[in-house]
């Protein structure tokens, strides 16, 4: 009996190709749209989250000068010195690393290639603070730090511009007036949260930059990273009062320095991501609903014809459950087929679109299953329920159905 029902169901699908095709199409579109939407959304969310993570978590940026804005003057504010760094390290609680940074825009030359980039003089703490890892080579040695030797670690963009595909290690770069040996290559980070290229950078020991590039003992800014679990508000307050004290600021004078918390930026961005995710969820739900209504319409449109068909089958001796089994198999086969095609289509679309938008492709089994079963359930319910109603009629009523 099952075989017979299967035979009849497949025969009906084949015979009503247009109707079958439309049913399958409805399910395919519904499933594919939802999966693509959610998968791309997840990819975008992950991309933004990665960018925030690459900033370094729990990071404080300390810069000389008053808060920027109209009527403020940052030009006269005193710079930081190495003593300030030591004081911060010793007197503020809950810090993981403190990195002084001396920045300078320079033109780099290696062989016949040249490239404009930014040099940062700093310490090995910079790698902790900025979440940097080395792709090759080594960090600065203590000796190089202390003596201010001409060594540097370069970012991926600089390496590509100056050395192409060759290993830069051991080569030297001309920075302004001196040659600098490349001892390390930073692992690529990609675009930063603000759209800048984080890999377009050259790092050298603090003392090297001070002596050979800026010619002063000034420190441009300080980057401070907090230990996990440190309350950033408390740390910021401690940092601020320490610096006010060291700069001998009276109570009624504004700060002549500025502390920024990247965690605050991260939290703002996280909120945005949350909104984005919720929005995507809503869009996905609407797509599912629309897809579902499409499936429902096609199923319901064919009810009249099918009711007569059921009447004929009953009249010539089919049992109610034989007719129902046939219709159930038909609905399940179409829905499952449509669902699988939808998943395949979504997979291809997601692969293509993520590559196009340079986003990570995150396969999400949950949404695949949800979309598949929701659409399949709608297909089965609206394919089967009207058939069940028709099969329960007296055959003559089903035959007369208009």
């Amino acid at each position: 009996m099952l075989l017979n029902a299967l035979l009849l169901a497949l025969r009906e699908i084949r015979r009503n190709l247009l109707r079958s095709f439309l049913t399958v199409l409805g399910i395919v579109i519904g499933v594919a749209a939802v999966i693509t939407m959610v998968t791309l959304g997840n990819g975008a969310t992950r991309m933004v989250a990665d960018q925030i993570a690459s900033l370094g978590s729990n990071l404080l940026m300390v810069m000389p000068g008053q808060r920027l804005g109209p009527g403020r003057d940052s030009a006269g504010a005193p710079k930081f010195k190495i003593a300030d760094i030591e004081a911060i390290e010793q007197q503020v609680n809950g810090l993981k690393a403190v990195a002084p940074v001396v920045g300078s825009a320079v033109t780099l030359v290696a062989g016949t290639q040249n490239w404009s980039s930014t040099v940062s003089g700093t310490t090995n703490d910079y790698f902790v603070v900025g979440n940097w890892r080395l792709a090759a080579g080594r960090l600065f040695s203590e000796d190089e730090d202390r003596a201010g030797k001409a060594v540097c670690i370069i970012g991926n963009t600089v390496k590509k511009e100056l050395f192409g595909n060759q290993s830069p290690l051991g080569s030297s770069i001309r920075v302004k007036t001196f040659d600098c040996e490349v001892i390390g290559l930073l692992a690529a980070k990609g675009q930063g949260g603000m759209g800048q290229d984080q890999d377009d950078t050259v790092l050298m020991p603090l003392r090297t930059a001070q002596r050979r590039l800026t010619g002063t003992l000034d420190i441009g800014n300080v980057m401070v990273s907090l230990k996990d679990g440190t309350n950033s508000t408390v740390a910021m307050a401690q940092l601020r009062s320490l610096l006010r004290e060291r700069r001998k600021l009276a109570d009624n004078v504004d700060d002549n320095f500025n502390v920024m918390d990247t965690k605050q930026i991260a939290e703002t961005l996280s909120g945005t991501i949350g909104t984005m995710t919720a929005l995507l969820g809503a869009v996905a739900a609407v797509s599912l609903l629309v897809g579902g209504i499409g499936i429902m319409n096609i199923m319901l449109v064919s009810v009249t014809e099918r009711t007569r068909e059921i009447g004929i089958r009953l009249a010539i001796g089919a049992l109610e459950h034989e007719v129902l089994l046939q219709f159930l198999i038909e609905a399940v086969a179409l829905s499952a087929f449509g669902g699988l095609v939808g998943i395949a289509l979504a997979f291809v679309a997601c692969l293509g679109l993520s590559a196009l938008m340079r986003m990570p492709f995150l396969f999400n089994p949950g949404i695949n299953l949800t979309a598949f079963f929701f659409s399949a359930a709608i297909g089965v319910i609206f394919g089967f329920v009207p058939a069940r109603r028709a099969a329960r009629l007296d055959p003559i009523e089903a035959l007369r159905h208009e």
Partner: protein
Amino acid sequence: MSQPLIELRAITKTYGQGQAAFQALRGVDLQIEAGEFVAVMGPSGSGKSTVMNLLGCLDTPGSGEYLFQGIHVEQLDRNQRALLRRQCLGFVFQGFNLLARTSAQENVELPLLYRGEPAEVRHAAALAALAKVGLAEWAHHTPAELSGGQQQRVAIARAIVTNPLVLLADEPTGNLDSQRSHEIMELLVRLNQEQGITVLMVTHEPDMARYARRIVHFVDGLVHRDERNPEAAPCC
């Protein structure tokens, strides 16, 4: 066999409810012997189609008794009635009621499929039935590719492919021109005489009723007149 093939006792049937209720049958008594060819005639609303649907187990009576070979059909459940249709009855409708987009052969095979016959048996029986109605050449055509008369002959082939005891035809010539109508009637007579199939036919055309050996007239939900038709040629 003293027992008639079919016996109706005081059958009633009411459509609708309350004020709108319409009593289509008001206590019909009827006996039909095996091998008869009966035409049921009567004006519109006289209950002739209703009685045909009840006889065919397509509909259920309001009250009364319906005995088929001594079985109380009015006490059977849906599935038992379906099995009775499957085993003993064949139907021919005014509107043909063939499955669309389905070849003549597959339409004729359908009752056998529900009986669970294997494919070879189905194919052979369907082709034989189509040959009997003169459509052996048309086995692979769909209803849309056949004329009305041909469609009705496919429907007759579908009805007789199971070798039923009774063939029920509700206005089988209602949608056909007169020449096709006579061809259909001659086919029914032949099936009745050569295969011994009991034929019950509803019609309102006296020309068609003349082929039957017995004519039952319905008026207002009751048997008005039940007569032998001496004209019916033992034909062929």
